[in-house]
């Protein structure tokens, strides 16, 4: 059951206004406007190549819009310098990828601690925080393992831990269960749901309706680079 939701501007942490993104002659986003409030869990869905990952990249500051504005926590992401973007990603964003994107040469613990160390957190303190997250995510036994020997689910948990390391305002997930078997996918879904329930703002890109309904309270539909639907979701049983 899909319910049309009301959107209050005052509490918006993410505001996209007429965002366009072109790659050569291909238009990936074509005037997308969207607002997301703190604590929301938003699922972005659409067919392959519709622009949903591009939309996420704009919000994450991984790419710059060709037109329009992306404002997150009052910062116009498109106007930030390269260094400014890096600091923005460091402080505001936690990103989870479909294919984990862990550094193969670092242990699971060092992969996670790295995110904090980049902010200048001392190594010992960073590792302590990482161990807390490993404990919470149930992978404490795998902390010294290297990505190559971890299962898909374990790798994604490590990626989630890394994303949460700096207590980001926004947690962005791009097909977080896309490379996982159903059991591992369920575990990751539970994890995201738990995070949102304790107030973490979550935007996830997926083509998995089950995941969207399970984790999100709002569904944004994208097709051909435009927002074609924006609905509130009923919590699934």
């Amino acid at each position, binding site marked *: 059951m899909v319910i049309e939701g009301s959107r209050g501007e005052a509490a918006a942490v993410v505001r996209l206004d007429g965002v366009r993104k072109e790659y050569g002659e291909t238009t990936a986003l074509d005037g997308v406007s969207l607002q997301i409030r703190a604590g929301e869990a938003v699922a972005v869905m659409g067919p392959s190549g519709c622009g949903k990952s591009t939309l996420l990249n704009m919000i994450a500051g*991984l790419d710059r819009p060709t037109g329009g504005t992306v404002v997150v926590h009052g910062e116009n992401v498109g106007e930030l310098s390269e*260094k400014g973007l890096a600091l923005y990603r460091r402080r505001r964003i936690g990103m989870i990828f479909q*294919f984990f994107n862990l*550094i193969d*040469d670092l*242990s699971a613990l060092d992969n996670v601690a*790295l995110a904090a160390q*980049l902010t200048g957190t001392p*190594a010992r303190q960073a590792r302590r925080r990482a161990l807390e997250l490993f404990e919470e995510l149930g992978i404490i036994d795998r902390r010294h393992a290297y990505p190559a020997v971890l299962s898909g689910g374990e790798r994604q948990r490590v990626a989630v831990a890394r994303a949460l390391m700096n207590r980001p305002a926004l947690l962005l997930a791009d097909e977080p269960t896309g490379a996982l078997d159903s059991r591992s996918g369920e575990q990751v879904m539970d994890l995201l749901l738990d995070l949102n329930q304790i107030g973490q703002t979550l935007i996830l890109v997926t083509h998995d309706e089950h995941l969207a309904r399970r984790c999100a309270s709002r569904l944004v539909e994208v097709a051909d680079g435009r927002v074609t639907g924006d609905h509130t979701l009923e919590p699934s049983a």
Partner: protein
Amino acid sequence: MRAVWHAARAAVRRRRLQTLVIALVTLTSTAAMVVALGLLDAASAPFDKAFGKQRGPHVVAAFDPDKVSDAQLTRAVRGPGVEAAAGPFAQATVELPGDGGMNFGLGSEITVVGRADPDGPVDRLDLWAGRWATRSGEVVLNRDPGWTPDDLGKKIHVPQGPTLTVVGFAFDLSRTSDAWVAPDQIAALHPTTTQVLFRFADASSEERLRGQLATVTGGLPADALTASRSYLALKHQVGGSARAYTPYLMAFGILGIAVAVLIIGNVVSGAVISGFRHIGVLKAIGFTPGQVVAVYLTMISVPAVLGCALGTALGNLLAQPFFEFVFMGPDAGVFHGSASIAPWVNAVALLGMPAVCLLAALAPAVRAHRLSAARAISAGTAPRAGRALGIQRRLASSRLPRSVSLGMGLPFARPGRSALTLAAVVLGVTTVTFATGLATTMTRFGNAGQDAFQVTAYAFNVKDGKEIKPEHDDLELQSLLGSLPGALEVTARANTDVRVAGSAHEVELEGRRGDRLQLGGVLTEGRWMRGTGEIVAGSAFLRQNGLRVDDRLVLEKGDRDETAVVVGEFMESNARQIVADWSTMTALSPHEKPIAYHVKLRDGADPAAYVRAARAADAGISPTVHGSNSITQTIVGSASVLTLMLAVVASLGVFNSVVLNTHDRRRDLGMLKSIGMTPRQVTVMTVTSMAVLGALGSLLGIPLGVVGHQVVVPRMAEAVDLTLPSYMTDVWQVPALSLLALAGLAIAVLGAFVPARRAGRLTVSEALHSE
């Protein structure tokens, strides 16, 4: 084959940067190799090559025109044994008062020959500036190409004779004349000699040349032949300096070739290894293993062949000014014309370097040939377990900024790639170290004894083809030279042949008298002679005679003998020479007179002014300014240029490694940026990873360079019968080594900086999307 070509062409297009790097590395390496091989070629037997090219005369003969006619000489030169002859040419001696001759680097008295053209069967002159003198009032001067062509058009005023305009500069290795005019002009200069230039069928020894000349001139009137000079004396004189620096240039040439070949191997094999995934994909879609190898060899060949072709052209372009610089100095002309790139060098570069590239690509390509498609794909992409875990962990826990500690860990994560890069840096640092040491040694070698004297006054002069004796006697002359303005010390020198008792061979005993008995000699052991019965000998003499310092020997001459003790060993490659004070020499040869006086001038005194004063004081002496050392310039010049070239090649090797690493790590870099790493931190991390290799490269390369210097330099000196004193070989001090350590870092950082900045600017979404 079509599929292979399509796949190879697509691969070249897709990997534009890597293709460009391969082309650049092959270009610079080939250029370095062309110059290095050119050096090897030019430095081996330079005199013979240059002499052969000019078809130099084996004998330059002077005849008295009052006693023999040109017609008689023309008939005579057709005699047996004469391979070719030039002349007869009328020769005049012209006095040029004041600075007339000095302005052109000539003496105050020059020989001028009337000659119709610079070519001919013998003595083909190298007319390197202007044109030949074809009309009256024109003159061509014999100058090496180091002279400035700006002097063309200047006038030479001959007293009671014509004014000659300099219309050309020609270099004559055989030094048959100081200047040439048209045959019509020579009569106005009052020629006193007729010159004939001979090439003989057998020019192997002085005796044979003398015999053949006697045969040719046998039918001419008595005393018609007034003087003759064989090319062997000239060859010995020129060859002396060439012998000294040939080994050094050869060492450098070999080093240059080694570096070029190794770096190319590094770059090309790295390119193939980084393409394993692509190889797997090709196999998966149906390419046979042979086709896959063909794709890769074609892919490498395109930039390699292009780079080699352009590199060969660049090498040829660089070689000319480089050789002109390197072979500058008194003997410069020896190499002029001959010191260009030989055709075989270009052939080797054009065929050899692509072959090296293909061989370098072949080894990893054959490995890929054997791998299954699945393994090839996984070798390119599969995540691997981390390497050097302990190092990574310790670095992660260190207090270093994380970008630095991550960078320091990178080389350990990819040991194979790091080893290749390290090899490039080690080679670069070894080269820089070796070259620096060599240049220091050679500078000290060249400077040794340079300040001992500035003017040499020979105790004879030649005028109008006739020898003039000094107006003053020996001691008066020494006193006179010491009393001229600017003189500080005067040392007389005479030579006489003596025999060492028990030996059949004669040796040359040089007796010295005056203020500075050591002259410009450098002691390697013992001390200089202080009185009668003491000699100092060169290393070559001592080695050949089985003698050491403190040994005694008996010198004999005629019915006289003298026991002498060897009190010192000095740096001298002439195995026939020993040095003693005047009293030792006169004990054996009481009537010996000095052949030359060496004058050290006071600081600031003008050697040219002293020479003029000496000439005016006694017309029977020929004072000349002691020239600078061309050997030093040759070695230091070549070492500097080759070091620079090889350092560039090594930097490109590093550059290539960083490009490949960056390509391999695109996903990691994108990920790091996605979690907040700034472009500057990415650059720092990437540069740090190479700086680690630079530091390691220094640690390995510096000792290798030092060992190379310590092994090569003394052996090369030994090859020319020289023992270098320790201060010339002990060139390594802590500050110099510290600076060299920076060389490794500099090579690595320079090579890494551009691709590191590029990595820093990588768009995150693109990098992650590429997965």
